[in-house]
C-alpha cells in the first residue's frame, strides 16, 4: 500500500543509527559546518607525488574546505602546500593546474615568493610601505603536508591536526604491501555532478548497489566468495572491504586479467574508504583513487585517478589502462552507472522535493550487502558535527520505537 503524507515522514522502523535525514545532503548551513568541522580538520588527498616530478613543479588544488592550494616541490625535493592566495590583494597566485615556478609570482603587482612560502620581493616595497610592511610580513600561509599510502600528497588545513599516520590508523593495513612500491598515475579526469559528496562516498561504501552494475553482477555477485567479503570499520570513520576472486571473463568482451598486482591474489579486489571522501580501490590490476571535493551541498567534483606500478613494462601498462577503461574510464561500463546513480539521488533529494529519509538498515553480519560501511561513516559524521545524522536540525520526532 502506498503512503500518505503523514506516513511518508514517519521515521523508518530501525535504530536511529540506521537512517539519516536527507537534509544532511542538501542543507546549506550544514554544508558550511561540514567544511569547518570535517574538511578543514581532516587529511585530504591533494595529488600524487608523481604529478610533481621535478623541483619547482606545482599542482593547484581546490580544497573541499574552501581554500585554494598550491602543492609545490622545492629545490630540496620536499613537497609543501600553501594557500594559492596573494597576501597583498588576494589574487590567485598560480592560475594553471600544473606548472613549474621557481618563483611564485603574482601577476597583479609582481610580488614574488619561493617554494618555501617566503616572500622574496615586494615591488617598490620600500617606497610604498617604508618599514611598516616588509617581506617578513608577507609570507604565504603554509598548510600541513605529508606523503604516504601509495605516494599520495595529503594536506590538512588544521595546524593542530594529528599526524597522517594517526589519522589513518590501521585502516590501510589491507593495502600496506600493495602500496609499498612506487606507483604512477596514468589516468586523471574530473566529473562535476549535482549531488552531495556523502552520496558518492556512500556509493563507495556499499556494494548492495552491484545490482546497478551488470558487469559486477556477472563477474562478482553470482560468483563464489562474493557474499563472504566483509566490511571492517576503523577509528576516524574509515572502512575496508575484503577481497574475492573476480571472474572477469564472465562478461562478454571481458577477459581474465593477465596483469595482477604484487601482494594481491589473482582476480582480487580490495577497497578502502577514507573519511570523509576518498577511496582506494585496488581491483586486480589497477588502483583507482577517488577524491570527493564538494562545491556546495548539491554540487560535487570528483577527481578520478588510475594508477599502475612505476616499474610497469609498456605492455603491462597498456593492460592496466585497458582494464581500467573497461569499467572505470569515462566511457567505462561501471563509472557512468555510478555517476548516474548519485546524479539521480541529487535530483530526487534537492531542497523542496520532500525527500525525507535515507535508509542504511541492512544487516548481514558485516558482509558485502550489509550497510554497516555507511553506518560507520555517519557515526563519525555525527560525532564530528555534534549532531545526529537522523536528526541534524533537532526538529525530527521519532514516530516509532527505534
Amino acid at each position, binding site marked *: 500500500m502506498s503512503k500518505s503524507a503523514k506516513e511518508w515522514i514517519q521515521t523508518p522502523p530501525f535504530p536511529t543509527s540506521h537512517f539519516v535525514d536527507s537534509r544532511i545532503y542538501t542543507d546549506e548551513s550544514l554544508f558550511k559546518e561540514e567544511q569547518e568541522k570535517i574538511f578543514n580538520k581532516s587529511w585530504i588527498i591533494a595529488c600524487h607525488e608523481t604529478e610533481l616530478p621535478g623541483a619547482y613543479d606545482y599542482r593547484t588544488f581546490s580544497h573541499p574546505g574552501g581554500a585554494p592550494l598550491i602543492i609545490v616541490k622545492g629545490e630540496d625535493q620536499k613537497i609543501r602546500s600553501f594557500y594559492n592566495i596573494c597576501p597583498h590583494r588576494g589574487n590567485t597566485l598560480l592560475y594553471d593546474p600544473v606548472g613549474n615556478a621557481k618563483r611564485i609570482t603574482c601577476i597583479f603587482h609582481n610580488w614574488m615568493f619561493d617554494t618555501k612560502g617566503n616572500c622574496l620581493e615586494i615591488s617598490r616595497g620600500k617606497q610604498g610601505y617604508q618599514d611598516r610592511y616588509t617581506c617578513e610580513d608577507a609570507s604565504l600561509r603554509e598548510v600541513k603536508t605529508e606523503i604516504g599510502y601509495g605516494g599520495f600528497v595529503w594536506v590538512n588545513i588544521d595546524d593542530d591536526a594529528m599526524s597522517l599516520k594517526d589519522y589513518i590508523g590501521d585502516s590501510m593495513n589491507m593495502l600496506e604491501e600493495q602500496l609499498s612500491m612506487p606507483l604512477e598515475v596514468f*589516468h*586523471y*579526469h574530473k566529473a562535476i555532478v549535482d549531488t552531495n559528496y556523502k552520496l558518492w562516498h556512500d556509493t563507495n561504501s556499499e556494494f548492495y548497489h552491484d545490482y546497478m552494475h551488470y558487469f559486477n553482477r556477472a563477474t562478482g555477485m553470482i560468483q563464489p566468495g562474493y557474499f563472504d567479503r566483509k566490511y571492517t570499520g576503523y577509528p576516524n570513520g574509515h572502512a575496508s572491504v575484503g577481497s574475492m576472486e573476480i571472474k572477469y571473463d564472465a562478461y562478454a568482451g571481458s577477459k581474465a586479467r593477465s596483469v595482477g598486482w604484487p601482494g594481491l591474489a589473482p582476480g582480487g579486489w580490495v577497497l578502502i574508504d577514507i573519511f570523509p571522501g576518498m577511496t582506494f580501490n585496488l581491483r586486480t590490476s589497477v588502483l583507482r583513487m577517488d577524491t570527493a571535493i564538494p562545491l556546495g551541498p548539491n554540487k560535487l567534483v570528483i577527481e578520478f585517478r588510475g594508477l599502475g606500478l612505476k616499474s610497469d613494462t609498456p605492455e603491462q601498462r597498456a593492460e592496466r589502462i*585497458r582494464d581500467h*577503461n573497461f569499467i572505470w574510464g569515462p566511457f567505462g561500463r561501471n*563509472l*557512468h552507472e555510478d*555517476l*548516474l546513480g548519485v546524479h539521480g539521488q541529487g535530483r530526487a533529494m534537492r531542497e523542496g522535493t520532500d525527500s525525507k529519509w535515507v535508509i542504511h538498515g541492512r544487516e548481514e553480519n558485516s558482509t558485502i550487502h550489509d550497510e554497516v560501511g555507511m553506518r560507520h561513516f555517519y557515526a563519525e559524521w555525527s560525532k564530528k558535527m555534534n549532531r545526529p545524522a537522523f536528526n541534524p536540525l533537532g526538529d525530527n520526532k521519532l514516530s516509532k520505537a527505534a
Partner: protein
Amino acid sequence: MREQITELIYKSFLTLDDLNFSGYIDLCHSSFNYKIGAYSPEIRKQMIWLQESRDSLKLLFENLPKHNSDHSRLSRLGNVYLINQESNGDWSALTFLQVFRTTLDGGASELFAVGKIKDKIREEGGTLKLLDRDIQLETRMFGFGHHIPF
C-alpha cells in the same frame, strides 16, 4: 573520392546518432581500430580512454541494453578539414568534432564534447571503409557521462 570519404565520415556520425550500431560497424574495415584519447595537463600525460577493435566495439554496443545508461540523445557535428592520400593508397582525414547532448525531458541541448578525429580509410571489396579512428578530445569533463562513444 574526397566526396565519398567525407560522406563516409558523416555517415559514421549519422549511424551513431541514430543508435544504428550495426550500420556503424558496417562502415568499418575488418581490421578497424578505434581509440579515444585526451591529454591531461594535470598529470602531464596523454591518456587513452577507450581502445577497441571492430569486434570488441561490436560487443560493446551489443552489451549496452544490459547496462543502466543515460538516454539523452547525442548529435555529432563534424567538419572535415583535410583529406590526403597516403603512399600505400589509403586515405587519411582530419575532422573537427562537436558533440551535443539533448535531454529527453524537455529537449534542452548542450555542447557535450569537442575534439579532433584522425581517420584512416581503406578500400575493401570495392567500398571505402574506416580503417582507424583516433579521436583526440579537448573536452575532459562529461558530468555523469555517457556509455556511447563518439
